[in-house]
């Protein structure tokens, strides 16, 4: 069974004067341990699709099953719990708490999961060490470089062992060299068995994924497997 099962999903926004169809009948299945890039020009509905997949938003109509559970039936608190336990977000603008240390930022999902403090600390330290920031744990975001901030965000996404990692333009605010480093990190995460969904408008970034979904006007325009994804090795 697919980890993510999306069938005929429609998302309509009421903008007062007119109805905007951000998604008009999207059907996708994503299996565990896939590495999928969602592409499309702006206005194609890719952000809306990501919000729906990330349980930040619910579809207007259609079916969205996450791990066999119908997300449309869930209330606010249950959505929050799914986001907390099953989904790790990585944002273009990092979205770290500016006044908190890297360690505290990574601990955040565990706080809401009710993990006791000593265990929380251990797990956050391990996640930071895994992304190569073992020596920066007590630094605040403004004391870190862009690449390091995004690594903190990745550590935060990973710390609660989510089912999927959802990255929205993760290299958008990074220079190309740092961007490549982050993409290498994603490739490693995928190799370790994680499921990754990447939203981007950059062809080169999407090439790292193993499957590319292209959206156009709120519909899936194409769904293709990448023959030779860019990998850690091929970048060297």
């Amino acid at each position, binding site marked *: 069974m697919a980890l993510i099962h999306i069938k005929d999903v429609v998302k309509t926004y009421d903008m007062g004067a007119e109805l905007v169809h951000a998604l008009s009948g999207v059907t996708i299945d994503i299996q565990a341990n896939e590495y999928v890039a969602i592409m499309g020009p702006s206005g194609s509905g890719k952000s809306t699709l990501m919000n729906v997949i990330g349980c930040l938003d619910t579809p207007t109509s259609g079916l969205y099953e996450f791990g066999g559970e119908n997300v449309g039936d869930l209330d606010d608190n249950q959505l929050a719990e799914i*986001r907390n336990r099953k989904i790790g*977000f990585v944002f273009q603008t990092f979205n770290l708490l500016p006044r908190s240390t890297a360690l505290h930022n990574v601990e955040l999902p565990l706080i809401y999961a009710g993990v006791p403090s000593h265990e929380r600390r251990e797990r956050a330290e391990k996640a930071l060490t895994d992304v190569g920031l073992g020596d920066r744990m007590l630094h605040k975001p403004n004391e870190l470089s862009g690449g390091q901030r995004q690594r903190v965000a990745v550590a935060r996404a990973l710390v609660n062992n989510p089912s999927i990692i959802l990255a929205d333009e993760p290299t958008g605010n990074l220079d190309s060299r740092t961007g490549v480093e982050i993409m290498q990190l994603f490739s490693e995460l995928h190799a370790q068995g994680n499921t990754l969904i990447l939203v981007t408008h950059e062809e080169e970034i999407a090439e790292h994924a193993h499957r590319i979904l292209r959206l156009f006007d709120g519909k899936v325009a194409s769904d293709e497997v990448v023959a030779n994804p860019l990998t850690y090795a091929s970048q060297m």
Partner: protein
Amino acid sequence: MSRIESISTTLQTLRGNRLRSFLTLLSIAIGVFSIIAVMTALGALQNSIEGGLSALGTNTFQVQKYPHNQGGGPGWHARLRNRPDITYAQGLAVVERTQGARYIGLEAWTFGYEVTWRNVRTNPDIAIAGETPDGLPTNQWEIDLGRSLSQSDLDLTRRVVILGADLVRLLFPPSYNPIGETVSLAGTRYKIIGTLKPEGAMFGSRDRHFVIPITTFFEKFGKNRSIHIMVQAESRENFQAVQDQVIGVLRAVRKDRPGEENSFAMFSNESLIREFNEMTATVRLGTMAIAAVALLAAGIGIMNIMLVSVTERTREIGVRKAVGATRRSVIAQFLSEAVVISVLGGLIGILLGLLAGNILAVALEIDPVIELTWIATGIAACCLVGIIFGTYPAWKAANLDPIDALRYE
């Protein structure tokens, strides 16, 4: 998110915004300060009055011409102006005809004399009390050295005096026994027969008394004056009965017509305390009203600052929601922030209020107090203010749409 967690998050946030947190906290502190300072000062004053009033002993009441509290409303003076003096003869009638009293003291006062002994001279601020022998116990005066007044001192209008403790200290060298010495006052020489034990002070010293027989007093200072009658009942049980008798005797000898009010005033410790409490109740009520307004203003300040904080931290709220914060935990976070600010402010206000109230108490030479009830009330009021004015901002934060919040610039 656990409570401890949200409080530690709160403290972190408050530290991040030191100046703003401090200013907000200050507004609450001022409100609480005003209430605690006034209540502490009043509490100290009340304790002191209750303690100091033992000048009139237990089960003792005093009769005098005019009420103790002269604020009798409009026309008060016109009504009482024509009251006849309470004469010595009327006092003696009370002494003769009242049963069940332990002591009935009669006294007359005059103020502002200087006393000399050899070449030592006091300021002209000495109070002269003409007393009957019973006047000493009803005034709670205890003999330290020598003896008290006797009936024969009165009968023979002897020029003898009992000195208050401060007066002894002013006139004589330390540990000098003044009994038998002669002092002069207003051209008359008095032989010292006794001294009084120190009484302690309320609003300055009361120990500068120059106590002479009431008959001698009349001879030297004139008889044309109103006296005080001080009556100590044998027990609490017959206090009322004794008081009624005295009223009866006085009405009769002063020829008060039936149906008219007494042509004299009476008060006891209890009635003085009651009067004081009535007076301070207004002050307390006023203070509470002002404090309520101050806390309301502070609460609005808190709400304002919390709304600013919610707007500023929209992205943070978005992030928290994205990583799994429920509405409840967001509400808990912002509410605890509001409550922590207001309670911290409250604690500061309480400390400063206790300090100010007690500094006032010390300045008035009365014992400092800590009004626990008002401290508890203050803290409770702060919690309430935090909760009331923190709820809307917290609710607003909790209802932010995570997608919009994450995109907020």
